[in-house]
């Protein structure tokens, strides 16, 4: 009895919403990815919430919001508590994605869908895996193993293989990339041949990609043109996935002395850019063979950037001289610095804005892709956080004072209570107060220090001790005056006006007709300055050049179809992608394979159970030694006539019983014995698929003359002809001659005949 396999598409089926599927194998429920769209659509999450308690394991494919965005919410707010499986880079980079997303959202609005604690809680549940590491599930999932396989696209990207012991192998592979890239290897399709169920997407099915070189040149010329005109380039990228590919490429470009780019700056801007690059540096073993080789050979860490500067805020960015290229998150431009910069830069026709991936319809990036010809005007909701001023500030301070007073009271109460409970260890209070020091208000209230002690910042990066001076008392740094042939070096910071951001902003604002719709949302910000969030709707005039250059790094249409056809799944389940592309792929696969194709809609539950019959038998040595094995490719085959041995225990183990226990399993497998009955006979079977061109090589090697003419292989001066019919049948014709039999022997040697 085969297992029951069902897939419930909670999101991401027949449209471009983020993937989120519930896969049920018998009693065990996997959640395949847990994505959330850029706008945090609450509808499907409601549906998903209902299953939170039933999910037994979550499998994550990629670290971006599309694939794990809903995880912090599910764990933090809905009580999802099962183990989550992901590769190490997905774990590390996923955290970066979520931190950046949270920070970007907080920078522009009151964001309470999830908190940083939720992110940490969610990622604590992740079990970190390596590629090709097989995990055997226990308990309810007995008999199931899961294996992550490399999928390309993003670092750590995974195709999941779920195997039900001895029978079903389910492959979940979406958004993979079969092509080798600069920093990643392509996906590993070898291990996937003939899965019983393949779950894949058709999102890219109708898109054709340009050749890599053409695409890279396009980006390069675009950047060069804009920079030479004096404009800035904004490249909207993700936080820690595809950005690695683009940043690595740009850094290499900048290193090339002939590129003429050395004079300009290139910046990686997101809230966690430093950490992303650090993590990337320590994950070389997950990257492409080429990068690994250069690292092993020359110890060049590819992510030790020479030219790319890392920035974490707009004000840091403003210190970088223009013209510049900025890689900013997020790719959808719904939030993050890419949106801020878009608002700032779009009106200047000298600038150019490059979108690198097709995001969900309705997002700013997608709107830009669809328009592509500037100039045009779009209404845009601009949200930002501004410091409180005037009356608002007073009101805020008053309410805070009340709060802090009560805080102090509470604190003092705790404090004395603590002292009372440790009468002998009074000194502990010092430690204690430093423990609590995260609360700023309390510290000020107590007046612990009025002396500011500056922490000595360690900025050394070298391996060994530098001859640094020791300061016995007060730190005194004598600044060396640096100079070049023109005299003392001018430090631009000294002459820079502060608050450049605000000014730049105001300029823009003044030019346009603005309808301000203020929402009073005062709150404590991380900057410790009371702020509020303001939402305005502005009609932005977009004059900058807009370009879409495909850096998605996913397999494109034609290859996608070929790959799926080549994998030859018994069942194919297509999720994600617009209905036309799904239809296109489904038709293609129906034509070229014998697979049963299923195309569920969002919310559908489809049954993908395969009615495979299967049982296990033991083979005796006597039986095996009586067989004549014939080699074919990497396997050997033989015809087997055998008898099931008599056994006292007549009970037969079907594979459904595999779930029970191993001891039962070992004991009752029926044994096959050889039969000596000569009356058993069978038709000979020719196994292999012959290609005439291959055969020609064989014939030539054996010393016979042969040539192709009109699809027919002519041998021995045309006395023997071989052709292949549509049906795959090979016909051999010829006059009777010794060569006929010799060629025939050669032909037979191409087959395993049993």
């Amino acid at each position, binding site marked *: 009895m085969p297992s029951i396999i069902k897939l419930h598409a909670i999101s991401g089926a027949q449209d471009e919403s983020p993937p989120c599927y519930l896969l049920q194998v018998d009693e065990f429920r996997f959640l395949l990815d847990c994505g959330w769209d850029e706008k945090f659509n609450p509808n499907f999450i409601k549906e998903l919430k209902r299953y939170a308690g039933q999910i037994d394991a979550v499998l994550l494919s990629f670290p971006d919001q599309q694939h794990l965005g809903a995880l912090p919410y599910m764990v933090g707010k809905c009580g999802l508590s099962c183990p989550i499986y992901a590769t190490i880079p997905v774990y590390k980079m996923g955290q970066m994605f979520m931190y950046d997303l949270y920070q970007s959202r907080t920078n522009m609005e009151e964001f309470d869908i999830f908190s940083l604690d939720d992110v940490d809680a969610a990622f604590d549940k992740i079990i970190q895996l390596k590629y090709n590491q097989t995990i055997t599930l226990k308990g309810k999932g007995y008999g199931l193993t899961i294996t992550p396989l490399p999928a390309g696209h993003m670092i750590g990207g995974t195709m999941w293989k779920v195997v039900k012991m001895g029978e079903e192998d389910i492959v979940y592979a979406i958004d993979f990339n079969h092509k080798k890239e600069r920093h990643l290897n392509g996906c590993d399709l070898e291990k996937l041949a003939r899965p019983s169920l393949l779950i894949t997407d058709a999102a890219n099915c109708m898109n054709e990609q340009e050749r890599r070189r053409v695409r890279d040149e396009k980006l390069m010329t675009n950047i060069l043109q804009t920079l030479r005109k004096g404009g800035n380039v904004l490249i909207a990228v993700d936080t820690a996935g595809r950005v690695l590919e683009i940043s690595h490429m740009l850094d290499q470009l900048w290193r090339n002395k002939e590129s003429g780019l050395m004079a300009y700056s290139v910046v990686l801007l997101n809230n966690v850019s430093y950490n992303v690059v650090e993590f990337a540096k320590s994950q070389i073993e997950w990257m492409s063979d080429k990068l690994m*080789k250069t690292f092993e050979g020359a110890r060049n860490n590819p992510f030790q950037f020479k030219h790319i500067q890392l920035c974490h805020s707009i004000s840091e960015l403003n210190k970088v001289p223009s013209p510049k290229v900025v890689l900013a998150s997020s790719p959808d431009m719904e939030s993050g610095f890419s949106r801020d910069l878009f608002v700032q830069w779009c009106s200047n026709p000298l600038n150019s804005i490059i979108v690198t991936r097709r995001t969900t319809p309705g997002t700013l990036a997608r709107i830009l892709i669809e328009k592509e010809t500037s100039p045009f005007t779009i209404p845009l909701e601009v949200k930002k956080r501004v410091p409180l001023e005037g009356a608002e500030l007073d009101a805020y301070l008053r309410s805070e004072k009340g709060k802090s007073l009560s805080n102090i009271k509470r604190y003092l109460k705790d404090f004395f209570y603590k002292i009372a409970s440790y009468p002998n260890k009074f000194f502990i209070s010092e430690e204690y107060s430093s423990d609590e020091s995260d609360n700023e208000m309390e510290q000020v209230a107590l007046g612990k220090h009025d002396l500011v002690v500056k922490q000595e910042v360690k900025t050394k990066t070298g391996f060994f001790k530098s001859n640094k001076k020791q300061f016995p008392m007060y730190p005194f740094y004598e600044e060396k005056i640096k100079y070049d042939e023109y005299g003392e070096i001018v430090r631009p910071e000294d002459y820079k006006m502060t608050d450049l951001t605000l000014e730049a902003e105001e300029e823009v604002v003044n030019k346009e007709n603005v309808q301000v719709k203020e929402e009073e949302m005062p709150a404590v910000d991380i900057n410790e300055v009371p702020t509020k969030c303001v939402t305005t709707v502005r009609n932005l005039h977009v004059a900058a050049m807009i370009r879409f250059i495909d850096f998605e790094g996913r397999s494109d249409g034609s290859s996608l179809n070929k790959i799926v056809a080549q994998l030859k799944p018994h069942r194919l389940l297509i999720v994600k992608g617009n209905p036309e592309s799904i239809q296109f792929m489904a038709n293609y696969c129906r034509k070229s394979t014998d697979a049963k194709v299923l195309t569920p809609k969002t919310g559908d539950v489809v049954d993908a159970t395969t009615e495979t019959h299967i*049982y296990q038998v033991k083979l005796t040595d006597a039986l095996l030694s009586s067989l004549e094995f014939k080699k074919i490719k990497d396997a050997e085959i033989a015809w087997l006539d055998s008898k099931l041995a008599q056994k006292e225990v007549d009970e*037969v183990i079907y594979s459904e019983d595999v779930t029970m226990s191993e001891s039962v399993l070992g004991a009752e497998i029926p044994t096959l014995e050889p039969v000596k009955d000569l009356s058993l006979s069978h038709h000979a079977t020719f196994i292999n698929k012959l290609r005439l061109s291959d055969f020609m090589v064989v014939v030539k090697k054996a010393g016979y003359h042969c040539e192709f003419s009109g699809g027919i292989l002519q041998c021995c001066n045309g006395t023997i002809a071989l052709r292949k019919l549509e049906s795959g049948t090979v016909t051999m014709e010829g006059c009777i001659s010794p060569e006929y039999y010799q060629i025939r022997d050669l032909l037979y040697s191409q087959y395993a005949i049993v």
Partner: protein
Amino acid sequence: MATKVKVESTLPAEESDLLSIRPLGAGQEVGRSCIMLEFKGKKIMLDCGIHPGLSGMDALPFVDLVEADEIDLLLISHFHLDHCGALPWFLQKTSFKGRCFMTHATKAIYRWLLSDYIKVSNIATEQMLYTEADLESSMDKIETINFHEEKDVMGVKFWAYNAGHVLGAAMFMIEIAGVKILYTGDFSRQEDRHLMAAEIPNVHPDVLITESTYGTHVHEKREERESRFTSLVNSIVTRGGRCLIPVFALGRAQELLLILDEYWSQHPELHDVPIYYASSLAKKCMAVYQTYVNAMNDKIKNQIAVSNPFVFKHISNLKGIDHFEDVGPCVVMASPGMMQSGLSRELFESWCSDHKNGVIIAGYCVEGTLAKMILSEPEEITTMAGQKVPLKMSVDYISFSAHTDYQQTRDFIKILKPPHIVLVHGEQNEMNRLKTALIREFEVDPKNKMQIYNPRNTVAVELYFRGEKTAKVMGTLAVEPPKPGNILSGILVKRNFNYLLLDPGDLGRYSDMVISQVVQRQSMHYNGPINLLQHILTQLAGPVESLEDKKLRIFGCIDLTLVDKCVTLEWIASPVNDMYADTVLAAVLQAESVEDVPKSMPSTPTKMDRMHFKECLMEMLQDMFGEDSVPKIFKGDKLHVTVDGKKADIDLEHMVVLCEEDELLQQVVQTAVSKLYNSLSPPKVDTSL
């Protein structure tokens, strides 16, 4: 699980149950680790090191005893010379064409460590095994494997666990046809400052090949060891001496640096005493240490996010002896660890005659090296130049080498419960002691049937594993549940020790194989008339089907067409059909050779002449049993024969003979009747094939 059975000599290697484990190096010795595994026709080499105490070809393991080109797989456990030192030689200078794996960190350090080794040993010996260029090109042949990642090379499955010995050190679990072998390499179950303790595999191996460097020795606690070390260093420098610590450039050195750096930062009074680390190699490999933090322990993983623990505050790099100002107390860490040659040797020779100085041996030393020799505190030593110099400096030995000790090994074995243990990588005496101790430890438990082996170099341990072979029956064949006595016929597909039994029709569904068809069409000249051909064929093959004009089907599978004096035979190829075709071909050639073609053909009987048969039968029976044994006249299909008063009934319709009295007679008559029938009846072909 393993029982001794006789191996059938006829069995091919891959079906044999014999697992042989043969140390080509590191058998009852330390150094040149190299162990051969052979099972089911697969040959695997574990490590390929050199002996640090020997040089040139002598340092190699006994690889001349195996055929390098037959080895399928070579696994390297870690980057120490005694585990990978011979690898460039083996990859470049032998006919080896299998695949070679190591972990990422190992590969990155291997490159630099061996290049350093080439440079260092160039001074000592002329007969180099390989050059920098060989090393460089060997890099392309080495593949990498991540910890826990499963690889499959021609049916051999293997994966790596963290071994804790040095960065990137791995233990390999190898599975061949269900038999699991764990090779520990060098391992340590003690977590230290930067490495995690060796992992305990969650599967039980059938054979454990473990190191036994420290035999029954028990390490002192980490804290004690560290404080002994630091106070020793302290006392040497405070008495105004120079402290030499010979170390392997990579591995334990990083651990010692972490300890010394921390100790110095806690003791400001020592800040005037410089610590030098004389290794350009370590500097080169720092990037590797900074990159592969995922292979280190959690402490480092967490710390690295804040600041890099491998950025030392009190330790300076020393480029070489030329850059060294030998003016006063100092601490110098220098490679190589056993002072065979190089900087550590030079410094030792220039310092050894001053009693204020001290040397601390911090790692394991192999027999035959200077480090091992001075541990016995000789009066004088011989320098590399050949002079005798008195040894006055203090010599201390504090083991920092991260090798398992007796306690760790014992606990490791207790958890894994392997039925077979093979000890390697240990001096003969240590190994024997460990073996005895382990046997004593585990003999208390009567259920435990653990076997421990300590083979010498080139001596194989032979184990028998009766691997149970199971096949999966799938598809049409499996529709009916298995019942004893049922006959199963189908195609058995064997791939990587997995068997699959399928109906030919299902082959395409469950495997990537394709069933094909070959059609043959042979033609030849034929001059004669068709009726002659037909006559001869009928005589040969019985009734011939006439499909259409001038097209005949013979044996139900061979189609013969005669057009314009040309006979064409067409059939679907199969061994049986080919044979029929050859027969038909012979008949055609025979017909061709008939010179005098008769005008009319005698009609060949296609039906049996029953009357004729009956007459013949009577005659035959009379010949056999005498005139009187059969009645003179009979009608219908019933006949009886009487022999010695016993009567046998013959049913001519069904060709059945029945004689209740004498079974022998029944058989004799039956045989006679059927044979006669067969010889008189026209040829009949079983066309089911």
